[in-house]
């Protein structure tokens, strides 16, 4: 089977600071891969390189057959980036819903503006995806009138409406009040059950344990360990994984430590 995402020897520098070091990674169809690691490890940067919100310093990014090698330039690059972005959907920690559009308009925006779809079809797609995340009843509200958990579900629907090959989640529940985390995780679980390929940066160990087909540990920009959740979470081999899991077990958020 061909991988949906294939990352080869990815390096990322911010100035002289190397944030990602020779990351290679393949994600296969219908896999749910959770990325864990302490704050500042480079998890967000890794995700953002996959849709070129950050430009890799070195290495290849391939999503569903569209491949970009670092250092490419010009008009060609712009088209490739566009193709790459069409193949992945991104969900941000801070939701980033468009505040001047209603819930429905937020989800329609991609199909209408990017895919040039006619309004009626876009409405249909938007409503279908709002249904999937249980937000159809709020379709005419503006984002400031709904809760954080609801915003994140709408953001998920917005990404799904573009029918991406893979969904990228960057700590989708980290900005939420504890009582709102559950509804978002429930939606993500149902997507996983439907066979959506997902790459999820998360601190929710229970989610990783229940839903992930694979867990990946990033430490200081390096991929230090990966494996099935049952093995990796119960029998971590790498010292950094052990330390990270110890912190979770102690109930401390690894985010406190920068």
């Amino acid at each position, binding site marked *: 089977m061909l991988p949906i995402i294939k990352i080869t020897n990815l390096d990322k520098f911010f100035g002289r600071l190397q944030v990602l070091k020779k990351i290679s990674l393949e994600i296969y169809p219908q896999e749910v891969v959770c990325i864990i690691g302490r704050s500042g490890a480079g998890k967000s940067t890794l995700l953002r390189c996959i*849709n070129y*919100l950050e430009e890799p310093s070195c290495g290849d990014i391939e999503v569903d057959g569209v491949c970009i090698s670092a250092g490419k330039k010009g008009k060609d690059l712009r088209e490739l980036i*566009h193709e790459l*972005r*069409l193949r*992945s*959907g*991104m969900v*941000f920690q*801070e939701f*980033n*819903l*468009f*505040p*001047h*559009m*209603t819930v429905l308009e937020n989800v329609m*925006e*991609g199909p209408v*503006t*990017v895919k040039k779809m006619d309004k009626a079809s876009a409405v249909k797609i938007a409503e279908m995806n709002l249904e999937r995340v249980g937000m159809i009843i709020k379709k005419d509200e*503006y*984002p*400031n*009138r709904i809760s954080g958990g609801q915003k994140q579900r709408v*953001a998920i629907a*917005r*990404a799904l409406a*573009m029918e991406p090959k893979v969904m990228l989640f960057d700590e989708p529940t980290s900005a939420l009040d504890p009582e709102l985390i559950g509804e978002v995780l429930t939606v993500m679980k149902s997507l996983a059950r439907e066979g959506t390929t997902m790459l999820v940066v998360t601190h929710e160990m229970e989610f990783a344990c229940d839903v992930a087909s694979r867990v990946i540990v990033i430490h200081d920009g390096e991929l230090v360990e990966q494996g099935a959740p049952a093995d990796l979470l119960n029998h971590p081999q790498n010292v950094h994984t052990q330390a990270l899991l110890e912190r979770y077990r102690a109930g401390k958020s690894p985010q406190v430590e920068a």
Partner: protein
Amino acid sequence: MVLLSKRSISIEPLSRKKSIARGVWITISISALSILLATILALLAALGRLSKFPPFYAICTFYVSLIRGTPLYLQIFFFFLALPQVGIILPGLWAGVLALGLNYGAYMSEIFRAGLSSVGKGQREAALAIGMTPGQTMSRIVIPQALRFAIPPTGNEFIAMLKDSALVSATGFVHELMWRATKVGRAQFHNLEALITAAVFYWVMTLVFSYFQGRLEARMSRGER
């Protein structure tokens, strides 16, 4: 001289009011056209000053700096008196609109710049991530939010413009409200009445406009934050 004026501008109180009222219409036209020009210039200048393209940045910065560094009064006379000397003769109204539009555009560019900067990086990234081009991201996501941010202060600029448009009367070429008030006053030796009439007109215009500004703001604030 006085007689001539008396003939051209009638003595009856009703006509005096009529003459001044026609000035109101010209004042509103000048202000509306100027604010339209100013808005376009301000948006361009704001984009320019946030641009990473050096020539665009340089031109916009120069424009804003030059306009803000010279008096409006001088700028108005520049268009009415200096340009004709080099053979560029603009109809009075348009010279006034150009001068006011350029001037307000420079000041309002700060408002738009603040508006554009108020749109977070996350908004841009969310738009790019669903596949929008940088241009679409600008026009669909960033600018609408920046405009919403900029509308209240732009309304204030419009009110200021209604009053500053009186300055173009100084050139004597545009017969707007203030010009007419002074002319009528002088012709009839009723400066007090004429000026009070004009003041009332200005005041009423700003009140009416403030009312609509309030309604517009209420409408625009849907989905705020």
